[in-house]
């Protein structure tokens, strides 16, 4: 029996090693490519061990020779705006869906779910003409507005399932004491669902951070590009050295990895609960 268990642990570890290598290899390859001189890369001389000593050189080239840091700053603005706008609306809407029964609740809930189905590629054309009319093309604020439409429902699912799990009794007594619903939400509910707020913040932030389709269609000025469009502009062009391109990819990726690893449990429980209950 013990021998069998040991065997299965061994098989498990081996399988895990294989899966870890599969998952980790492309990430490792980003690092490795960033740390290999471009001349070696194009002679098929990429070694399997990254040359860490090149780190500082590579990143100083990235900061001096490309506008990538500026593009990342634009991404940060878009992502931060998306997060703020999404969380304010999603928190209030989640509270309504969780605590009240009202006429039209079903259709409104469906509206939030249905946005998961809308292809961005379909909406990009009408949104383009809408934004052209509103003077929002070439504006980072335009990206904030459109990203929020796709990110906010996801935040709403996470927050609704979190609020569902907060006992109602506390609020009941506060309400009897004459607190307004908005202050109950602010003072009592939001602190209790803070971890889920953080998870929702991470997911909406990186929705804005990663988004490419709207950014590439709406933003034409090179100086207003965001990280994703800037990075994509390196694809198929040869004037930027490949190791610099991959160092840009690395810098663009690291914040996302850190925050997702910190928040993964909360994000997953929120997403699944939200989609199961609608």
């Amino acid at each position: 029996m013990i021998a069998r268990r040991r065997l299965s642990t061994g098989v498990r570890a081996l399988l895990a090693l294989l899966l870890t290598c599969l998952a980790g290899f492309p990430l490792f390859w980003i690092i490795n490519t960033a740390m290999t001189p471009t001349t070696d890369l194009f002679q098929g001389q990429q070694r399997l061990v990254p040359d860490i000593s090149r780190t500082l050189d590579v990143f100083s080239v990235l900061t001096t020779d490309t506008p990538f840091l500026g593009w990342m700053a634009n991404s940060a603005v878009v992502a931060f705006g998306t997060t703020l706008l999404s969380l304010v609306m999603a928190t209030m809407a989640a509270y309504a869906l969780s605590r009240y029964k009202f006429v039209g609740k079903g259709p409104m809930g469906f509206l939030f779910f249905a946005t998961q189905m809308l292809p961005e590629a379909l909406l990009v054309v009408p949104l383009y003409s809408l934004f052209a009319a509103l003077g929002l093309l070439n504006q980072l604020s335009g990206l904030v507005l459109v990203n929020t439409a796709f990110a906010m429902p996801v935040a709403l699912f996470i927050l609704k399932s979190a609020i569902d799990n907060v006992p109602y009794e506390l609020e009941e007594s506060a309400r009897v004491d004459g607190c307004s619903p908005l202050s109950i939400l602010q003072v009592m509910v939001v602190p209790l669902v803070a971890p889920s707020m953080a998870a929702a913040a991470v997911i909406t932030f990186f929705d804005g951070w990663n988004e490419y389709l709207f950014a590439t269609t709406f933003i034409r000025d090179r100086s207003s590009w965001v990280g994703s469009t800037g990075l994509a502009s390196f694809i198929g062009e040869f004037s930027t050295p490949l190791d610099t391109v991959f160092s840009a990819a690395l810098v663009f990726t690291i914040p996302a990895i850190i925050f997702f690893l910190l928040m993964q449990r909360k994000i997953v429980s929120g997403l699944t609960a939200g989609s199961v209950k609608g």
Partner: protein
Amino acid sequence: MTVTTSARTQRATRRRRFSWTPYLFIGLAVLYLLLFAVVPLLKGLDLSFTNTRLLNPTAGKYIGFDNYDHLLGSGAFFKSVVTTLVYTAFTVVGSLALGTVSAFVINRFFPGRILARAVMVMPWAVPTVAVVLVFRWIYNDSTGVANAATAALGLGERGWLTDPSYGMLSVVLATVWKVTPFVMLVVLAALQSVPEDLYEATKIDGADSYSTFKLVVLPFLLPTLRVVALLMTIWSFRRFEIIWLLTGGGPVDVTTTIVIDVYRQAFNNSQLGLAAATGMLGLLLSLIVTAVYFVVEQRANKQNGVNA
């Protein structure tokens, strides 16, 4: 105000009074989605009945169902539907299989589990543009590591992104790599919600590990797997960036899914009307799949009800 509150709450439990409060809370979000999702959708629907061109967007004329007639009569549209279904099927099956296996592996202790779990989650967080960049480099014809590996194994070299027979495979592999962690985490959460005493009970009853799996784990897992399959399907239907940036729909259109078709018609051929009609038919496909899912789900629930 406070005097009447307790009486009011007592009555409220019996019959709820109309109140503006929930509408004030949810109103902003609903209006927002109406403006930035529903209005564009309706505008898209409107466009799909016109011959609007990108270069002169105000000069479009209504042409009735011509765009739809054209699409439904064209082989290219059906090819993009088939391509979408193939891409979706392989991505969903691949990520569900790999994600479920990963979850089972991670669910029990082994040395190095925490590190393995962290690495296995990471692809989920990598921005799509970075994913594309590294996969294009891996798939590169002359200097890519994929060809170095197949050559070393004596399998020769492939045009991963240039040979029409491999384009779909390459795109699916990159997508599966990116989305599998989500499946893994969701399945893992479901596995960990299986009550421990259920395991104990079946063990006492002398069940072997296969029947434990069949009787205890699978019933817990199936609803989760169905939801994940639905989400993965819907997301695959609308997935744009990874395909567009990897292949642009090529080589020779083998990865031109419906959304790629929409974007190319709009921004390469500047046919906004036709693009909108294509997108509408794609959306219809998503709606059908979702409807089928909910029918299946209800049947499954009914069956469970009978069994219990």
